[in-house]
């Protein structure tokens, strides 16, 4: 039986316990969680907050693709929980929460890492930093392409992707 999924674009504070409860599974001995938070500095500039803009529907679709790819690599049984925040966050605010549970620990670590790396490259999400000096700026990101997995992969880069900027 395949594991279960929860994908959401959050506009209320992201709750870690909800992810833990969702991922819990009688048959699973391990869960790995990744929590991304807003930090007070980026590239030497003092940050006071961040606004995330999200193309919701396509982002959810990317989450769904990532769950499929993760199960192909690390097994059907993974339970996968992904929430990304949309809107403004202060320092310490949770921008993303990923939880992956699995029978054994190796799969949950690897799948969780895979998902965060891929989201950074593939999900249509943009980040505007608000600086202490009053300025704000959209952060330079990764160009999208219509291919599949891009970044956190032991396998060699397929020929068809080699032109992509994210390699």
């Amino acid at each position, binding site marked *: 039986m395949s594991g279960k999924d929860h994908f959401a674009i959050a506009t209320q504070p992201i709750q870690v316990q909800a992810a833990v409860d969702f991922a819990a599974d009688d048959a699973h001995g391990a869960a790995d969680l990744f929590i*991304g938070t807003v930090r007070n500095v980026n590239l030497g500039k003092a940050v006071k907050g961040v606004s995330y803009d999200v*193309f919701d529907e*396509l*982002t959810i*679709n990317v989450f769904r693709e990532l769950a499929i790819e993760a199960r192909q690599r690390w097994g059907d049984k993974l339970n996968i929980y992904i929430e990304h925040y949309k809107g403004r966050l202060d320092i310490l605010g949770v921008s993303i929460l990923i939880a992956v549970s699995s029978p054994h620990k190796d799969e949950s670590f690897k799948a969780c890492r895979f998902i965060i790396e891929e989201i950074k490259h593939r999900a*249509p999400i943009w980040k505007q930093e608000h600086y202490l000096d009053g300025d704000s700026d*959209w952060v330079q*990101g*990764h160009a999208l392409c*219509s291919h599949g997995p891009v970044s956190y992969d032991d396998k060699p880069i397929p020929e068809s992707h080699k032109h992509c900027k994210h390699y």
Partner: protein
Amino acid sequence: MTSNDKLNISVQLFGAFRRVHPRPVELCIERNTKIKAVKSALESALRELNPAFDDTELLSKSVLANNQKIYQDDDVIEESASIAILLPVCGG
């Protein structure tokens, strides 16, 4: 505008594009126009809506997509639709 050979395409803007224009951009294009040409039409429309817009690099780094997938340059638009122009991304 809504004859059989014309399509209404609404292009959603995100991130830095919202500074160029605050609302979706409405395009009227020929049926079966290739994505590459849709992008050019979008560029013209943005210049018309905001004469100060001259950052063509913003567009060259971006891709068009619908709710489900990112378009390739040779894809064609067959129906009126809501699509989106997507700058390089920075989630997580």
